[in-house]
């Protein structure tokens, strides 16, 4: 509510990455953003699209409430014992098992970031689905789904290796919806550390 961000980014800002001007914003509303979860709304009229665009622009004048944490301390949490960097990349450094977080502050709101840290399974994107596969030969592969079609599935295991499996050769294929390889940081971190980490992640705008 209020365009302050959730699964999508906060819209309460003067400039929007995919909508530099009015026409670009209209296009985003109508067609969505390819390669993201932002769907298009082709069914609504041009007039309604213009009204939505005007509302989105009005949000840029809303003063965003500052986040409670300290982003520099958050960076230390990220790079320290929490181990975030072993799975997540920022500006080309880190692991690849989880999403690249270089611009996560542009893509996600603070509430969504908090939920992702406390209950990772609740917000896991389909492209990071945890899968357990067992081949007819008895081999078990556990990993994150990289791609899938009706005949094959590609998984990335915790060591980063890609496994390409033919579904016809699988004995069992379990999709662990709502589960994540990522541990919950709700109890691992103190409330202050969590605030700091969220402030740090929210500050990441893809600008080195």
């Amino acid at each position: 509510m209020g365009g302050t961000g959730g699964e999508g980014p906060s819209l309460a800002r003067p400039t929007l990455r995919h909508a530099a001007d009015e026409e670009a914003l209209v296009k985003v509303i109508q067609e969505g953003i390819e390669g993201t979860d932002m769907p298009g709304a082709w069914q609504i009229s041009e007039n309604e699209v213009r009204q939505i665009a005007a509302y989105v622009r009005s949000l840029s004048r809303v003063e965003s409430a500052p986040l409670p944490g300290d982003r520099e301390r958050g960076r230390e949490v990220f790079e320290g014992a929490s181990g975030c960097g072993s799975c997540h990349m920022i500006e080309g450094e880190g692991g690849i098992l989880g999403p690249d977080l270089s611009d996560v502050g542009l893509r996600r709101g603070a509430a969504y970031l908090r939920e992702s840290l406390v209950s990772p399974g609740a917000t896991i994107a389909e492209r990071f689905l945890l899968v357990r596969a067992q081949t007819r030969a008895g081999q078990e592969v556990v990993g994150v789904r990289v791609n899938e079609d009706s005949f094959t599935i590609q998984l990335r295991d915790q060591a980063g290796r890609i496994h390409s499996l033919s579904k016809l050769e699988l004995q069992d294929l379990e999709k662990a919806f709502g589960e994540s390889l990522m541990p919950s940081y709700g109890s691992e971190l103190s409330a202050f550390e969590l605030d700091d980490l969220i402030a740090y992640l929210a500050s990441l705008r893809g600008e080195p």
Partner: protein
Amino acid sequence: MKRSGFVIVIVIVVAASAATAQVSYDRIKNAAGEPASWLTYSGNYASHRFSALDEIDASNVSRLRPVWLYQTTSGGELETSPLVADGLMYLSEPPATVTALDVKTGRPVWSWSRPMPTDLRTLGFPRTNRGLAVLGDNVYVGTLDNHVVALDAASGAVRWDVQIAENSIGYCITAAPLAIDGKILVGVSGGEAGVRGFLDALDADTGERLWRFWTIPGPGEPGHETWSGDAWKTGGGATWLTGSYDPELDLLYWGVGNPAPDWNGDVRPGDNLYTCALIALDAKTGKLKWHFQFTPHDVHDWDANQIPVLVDAEVDGRLRKLVVMANRNAFYYVLDREVGTFLLASQYSKQTWAKEIDESGRPVVLPSTEPTEEGTLVWPSLQGATNWFSPSYSPKTRLLYVAVREMGSYYYKAEAEYDAGALFMGGGERALDGDEASGAIRALDLATGKMVWNFQQHSPPWAGVLSTAGGLVFAGAEEGNFFALDASTGEPRWQFQTGGGVRANPIAFEVEGRQHIAIAAGKAILVFGL
């Protein structure tokens, strides 16, 4: 002397090629007996999309390999179903290009394009074209700006060009025309813009209109009483998919699209005939012989623009002429095609909107399934349990093969005000996609609609199905897989990753006596052989 000898040779060659380029009405009527060609959109007038070729079968299909690919450059993703006749493959490319390819090599022989106007309106669907018709020595195409054009099949030269509707108020042509004896049948899109749908019959030689059937009856016509006020004028009922034809009965069978506005039915109380119905028209006059409405007063955009499949089969101990349809509303229907009698309906995909189909064929609609301001979750989705992509009927297995979409949607209702040339939908829709949706190829028993086998797909398909006398069913997937299933069991026998979403119907034909299979995927046509 040498010079005059050369001239004589040329004359003989031209005469010979003209003689082989004639695709007569009789050839199309008997297309099932000429499997080396693919002469009409659905393979034959009965729309079986079945090939009598049996060289490729379960024992050798694992060796199927690409023979050639043709990459289109004119526009977006292909949804075309090509035709093959006398050594050439004819295909439509979006937005308005027709290309003839040498069927042996995939090399273009000619290409024709109509530039699209800069203010072209395609309201509610992509800028696509699903195919062509051939008759005599002409190839026929309909364009998004509503021109129907006859092209010389040998050169692509324009024989005639007529405009049948205005694009400025939302009409377009996306469907392949249907060529019958001396006539070209052309349907229109535009149900999301509140057009008044129609089906036109044009003279194949001149383009002159022979008759027009309005799918929304006007004042004084039967069915007009199912509308109120002026709602009929903007009632939708588009005819955007190629129909079927019974030459003996001389009847055309054509599916009719949704009423407009799509999701707000308050402004159009009544059954809204002939939307979401199958109509049977006298091919000579265009007069309505009978109709059957699958979804009266539809509020979910469940067009009946699916392929009506004509079969003769025994029902209750009596051999009958039937028309069957796996409808977008998730029910399979069997009707008598002579008089339109409802014989049977059977659910073939998940649905949450109807308690049952009653003895008259009318759905018993469940409460709380209408679109609301907050959104109402209903199966199937806006795109339906199936859609425009073709089913296939195999006379060998007597099964109907259907590509099925298992997907639900939240349906939203909003104010609907008609504004000529703008979307007229009265709401919106949000589909449950990703892992919440799936797809399937299903084999249905023709007489009962009962599922005989199911092949699960990763996602809801947009590709049609071809069955062959080789005991195979060919189908495609959004993720680019083109594959063959055993027609009797549904077991997968072969698959090929095309690298582009398959949103088209497969065909089969012969090149120099060898069976080939073609499919459009992404922006390319792929041809396979052993």
